[in-house]
């Protein structure tokens, strides 16, 4: 990939990285690494873990990318080594079925807050106590402030979570960054790109493959062509159309528009 030129403005640089690298057309590893690096650039982080919702279960999270910055910080400050360390994070992160838990990890707690940002302020933060005691490793939270950024797409479990930690002394600046307009714009862009990449319209849950075929025909074809394509009579097609409109809870006149929305997300 062509390297992106560095610009003095970290927000513009991060936006360019997301705009080019987080794409429906790129493969998963590249995409999520680009996202982690963009967040590292935008927020001057040293490490970032990206996890995404498991496609199979739509319930749990899997780790897609874990990047630790051992070289210079994006703002030019030197650190103790000289390279990015890309490694795998935890393979499987179980998220609780409901807000009351049991939560086996902070990702689960953060997911159920339903907010785009969750901050854990050290080991005394009450949030830590929400993790089931058998799985609560207090040492993990000592001496750092942890941030969990969630992108939701209509389901309970977020589509993607970025998590990173920082020393409490530096947390104030990071909180200010996460409250800025620039961050808000970057957050929106990332969300838009993630949804483009993983279209998963929740309202179509439960539709059979045949229903989806009907939906495609509704968008693209006339009644006659659709009936011919689906090898059914015109009256059967009209009946299926009525049923589909009822199930999707839209007026029959609006059904082709909904169908087009759906094929656009495909």
């Amino acid at each position, binding site marked *: 990939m062509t390297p992106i030129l560095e610009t003095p*403005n970290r927000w*513009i640089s991060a936006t*360019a990285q997301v*705009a*080019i690298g987080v794409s429906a057309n790129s493969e998963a590893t590249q995409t999520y690494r680009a996202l982690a690096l963009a967040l590292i650039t935008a927020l001057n982080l040293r490490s970032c873990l990206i996890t995404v919702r498991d496609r199979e279960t739509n319930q749990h999270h899997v780790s897609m990318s874990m990047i630790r910055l051992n070289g210079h910080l994006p703002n030019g400050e030197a650190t103790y080594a000289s390279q990015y360390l890309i490694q795998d994070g935890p393979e499987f992160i179980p998220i609780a079925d409901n807000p009351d838990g049991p939560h086996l990890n902070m990702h689960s707690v953060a997911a159920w807050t339903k907010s785009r940002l969750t901050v854990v302020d050290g080991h005394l933060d009450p949030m830590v106590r929400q993790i089931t005691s058998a799985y609560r490793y207090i040492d993990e939270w000592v001496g750092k402030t942890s941030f969990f950024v969630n992108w939701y797409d209509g389901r309970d479990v977020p589509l993607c979570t970025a998590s990173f930690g920082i020393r409490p002394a530096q947390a104030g600046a990071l909180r200010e960054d996460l409250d800025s307009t620039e961050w808000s714009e970057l957050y929106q862009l990332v969300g838009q790109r993630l949804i483009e990449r*993983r279209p998963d319209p929740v309202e179509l849950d439960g539709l059979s493959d045949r229903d989806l075929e009907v939906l495609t025909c509704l968008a693209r074809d006339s009644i006659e062509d659709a009936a011919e394509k689906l090898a059914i009579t015109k009256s059967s097609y009209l009946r299926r159309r009525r049923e589909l409109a009822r199930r999707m809870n839209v007026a029959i006149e609006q059904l082709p528009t909904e169908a*087009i929305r759906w094929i656009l997300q*495909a």
Partner: protein
Amino acid sequence: MDTPSITQQIARLNALTEMGLLFDTVCRAWVTAPGCTGARLIHADGANRHQIRYYFDGTFDHTRVSRPMRNLRPLDPLSYALEGKKDTGVVVWPGDDDPPVLPGGFPVITPKDVAHVQVRNHCRAVMPLSWGHDLSKPVPLGQSSSSAATLEPMNLLNANALVINATINPDRIIEWAEWMREHGFVLKHVCGERMTRVLRHPHRDFWYDPEFSPSALSVVERQYLRLWWETKLPETKLAELLELDPKTIAKTRRGLVERYGDNLHRLACRMGYMGATNEDSSGIPTL
């Protein structure tokens, strides 16, 4: 608007529902470069090319959009850039004098250097809107269903590409090349990523047609189509709302069906109504 903010605006556009606006914004972005007086957005496929946007002197010329042209491969700079200089693009320097050396070793072609390339009489830059990743490698299936179409040969951008042809003032060409180094390449990749999204979508043919020109619709046709798309009311009701004779409405509909087929939803998508929030912003003459 300056280049970084217009680049961010492009990144945030929905390449599918805001396609018309995307094309217009891409042209506008390239003319923010110093010395750039105009930009054309061209879609090149194997045999033809279509000039889908023509932006000159600060405005879009809608009488010149979607003009299909013969592809003169490999005799024209556009094919030359697509075949050999996809990553950087080329500057075309007409005339007999020696071209200036551009910062960063930006490639320049002249009639002397590349004898077989037909160089016309204005200085310009031909920029294939490529995207940083290796386009010849198909994206693994299952990452996104939008990658399903990448295995079709016609989707490889070698054969199916969008190109910016920007007219440059030759006196400011050095300044332009410096802008390219600072902003242009990022802009090129951001545009390329969005364009790839359009060209690789499995259902792209539904709303993208390089020969379709929104300006070809009359005012009454636009009024009718827009209102129908928003309300889906029957013709008699639309006639009342538009204060037109029902016969005029029926005639308008028949005219559209004859020219564009009976799927008015598809036509509305090609007009950009699916994602439109403000029709004025597309630069297309309004109602």
